[in-house]
């Protein structure tokens, strides 16, 4: 029994953290005068109740895989990139604009090209916090938060000034058909993006497990002075990991534009970048862990909407649960104490 426990220690802690978060959540639901059973059953039904809801859950999982991976990649080098939201906006914006202007290209060139452009836009946005952290030690949490505000403002400015569709809604025109990701199930908005996400998970997993560069980045994250002693340029590794992280966050925006919205719209995100923090923390910064955590939070996001619509319970409960999950996972000693009792 103890042996099994030891082997799956991390998993058991994460699971306990989730259960605890839901328990605290139910106290809040109850105190606010709602039925806990009604709330959680509406949540469950909304996330998994029928095929349509399930595809919605998968659709919400995809950006969370990217933003969660982005945070996890930063963590590998010891950096906490909470700028995923801004990097995602830049990625979405660049992808939409590139797709609109390069509409003469055939799909098999256009799709990978605008994906990469979206990723690079994210990279550009994460470069500065990485560079400043390496050069001056400026805390990346503060700088990435500021870059979020700047990123959302700048995309909205550029949109309104140069690229707005001729309508009252602040959005671009639709991107060409050739740049859209094909749907897996008709009318579901669940597209090939899911395979791109899984492909990126595999690549990142291999990168950190099998390549020298990935190993170097992790060494910096674990012990910067030891890494320096071993001849690794830790500054370079930090900037690099921030840029990879930003690239992946940019892909979140790119795939939303290519698969779901088919255009750039201001304020399109329900906070995927921030939920990515909870995803990475719960997934213990492991690529496959991120997949499961993203699915959980994708389900919460989808179910939360149903809960609000039909049970009239504010969906901000999901934000509460995210915060609790992060706090509980960050404090394994608390869980250890609880489990021992």
């Amino acid at each position, binding site marked *: 029994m103890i042996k099994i426990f030891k082997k799956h220690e991390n998993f058991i802690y994460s699971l306990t953290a989730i259960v605890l978060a839901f328990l605290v959540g139910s106290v*809040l639901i109850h105190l*606010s*005068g709602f039925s806990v059973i009604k709330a959680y059953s509406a949540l469950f039904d909304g996330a998994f109740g029928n095929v349509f809801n399930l595809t919605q859950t998968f659709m919400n999982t995809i950006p969370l895989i990217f933003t969660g991976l982005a945070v996890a990649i930063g963590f590998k080098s010891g950096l*906490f990139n*909470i700028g995923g939201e801004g990097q995602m906006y830049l990625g979405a914006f660049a992808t939409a604009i590139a797709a609109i202007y390069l509409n003469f290209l055939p799909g098999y060139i256009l799709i990978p090209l605008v994906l990469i452009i979206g990723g690079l836009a994210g990279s550009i946005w994460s470069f*500065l916090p990485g560079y*400043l952290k390496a*050069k*001056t*030690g*400026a*805390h990346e*949490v*503060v*700088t990435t*938060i*500021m*870059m979020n*505000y*700047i990123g959302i*403002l*700048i995309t*909205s*400015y550029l949109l*309104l*000034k140069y690229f707005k569709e001729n309508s009252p809604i602040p959005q671009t025109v639709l991107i060409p058909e050739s740049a859209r990701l094909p749907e897996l199930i008709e009318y579901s908005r669940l597209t090939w993006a899911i395979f791109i996400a899984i492909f990126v998970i595999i690549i990142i997993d291999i990168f950190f497990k099998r390549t020298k560069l990935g190993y170097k980045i992790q060494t910096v994250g674990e012990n910067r002075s030891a890494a320096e002693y071993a001849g690794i340029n830790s500054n370079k590794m930090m900037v690099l990991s921030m840029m990879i992280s930003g690239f992946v966050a940019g892909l979140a925006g790119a795939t939303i534009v290519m698969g779901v919205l088919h255009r750039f719209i201001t304020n399109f995100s329900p906070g995927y970048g*921030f939920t990515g*923090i*909870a995803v990475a*923390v719960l997934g213990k910064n492991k690529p496959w862990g991120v997949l499961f955590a993203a699915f959980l939070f994708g389900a919460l996001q989808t179910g939360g909407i149903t809960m609000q619509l039909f049970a009239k319970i*504010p969906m*901000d*409960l*999901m*934000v*509460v*649960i*995210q*915060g*609790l*999950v*992060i*706090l509980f996972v*960050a*404090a*394994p*000693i*608390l869980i250890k104490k609880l489990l021992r009792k």
Partner: protein
Amino acid sequence: MHEILDVIFNINTFSAAIRISVPLVFAAIGGVFSERAGIINLGLEGMLLAGAFAGVLGSYLTGNPYIGVLFAIICGAFIGFIFALFTIKFEANHVVAGVGLNILLLGITTWLMQILWGSRGTSVNVTGLNEITIPVLSSIPVLGKLFGSHNILVYLMFIVVIISWIILFKTPFGLRLRVIGEHQEAADTLGIKIRKIQYTSLIFSGILCGLGGAYLSLGHLNWFSMNMSAGRGYMALAANIFGGWNPLGAFGASYLFAYTDALQMRMQALNLNVPNEIIQMIPYILTILVLAGAMIRSRPPAGLGKHYKTNR
């Protein structure tokens, strides 16, 4: 050009900056106290937000804004204690726990707002803090305009800046606090009650953020709105660093941020040829520049972010 210079050196801009600086100053000094005790406090943001909410709640329930301020103080103290529990007792990573706390408090305040007032945007209007005019001071030309008429939290802020500085640098408690931030093991060996001091300073940090939050909602707008702290907690942390982990420095840095913010708002009203989105970015860009600039020349407390187990 003449118009811009007019705004830059206008007494009203300086006076507006005092008002805007209040939440930043409180939170930045909250940051000074926790970071001097070795705890990285990104939770400032959530604490401000919760303080703003508690202030409005108190005023809503009793009709008295001063009870609202009391609510904010109690709420801040409680959250400071919870944050201390997680970072000290449960040895959570300070940065992760701080961000988790912020997300949690954003969720809880938005949730409660909908339960209480049925809206996700803003709360109902409540009674805010009234302005207090100081008789003689208010009639002096420049000083009167700057300091003559404010609500109680503004005056309290000036007192807090000075008292915090005295506590930190002129009292045995402050000395012990600073030793803990530099080297917990050494402090422990000296017989300093590390835990007690750390808990105290985090609770104090929470109280200060509560006051800053109460100013945001009760001193400024008289209502609460979703995520109304809008990154000020993070800016305050940067101001704390730029100010060299010193209450006086934190005040100066916060005032600088506030001044740019005041300038930004006035420039928007000027109808210059610069788009508003670009003007709105100025405080955020400045925060990044200032933080990067400050880090080159200053040194954080050596034990910041580290966990240490006492044997007692």
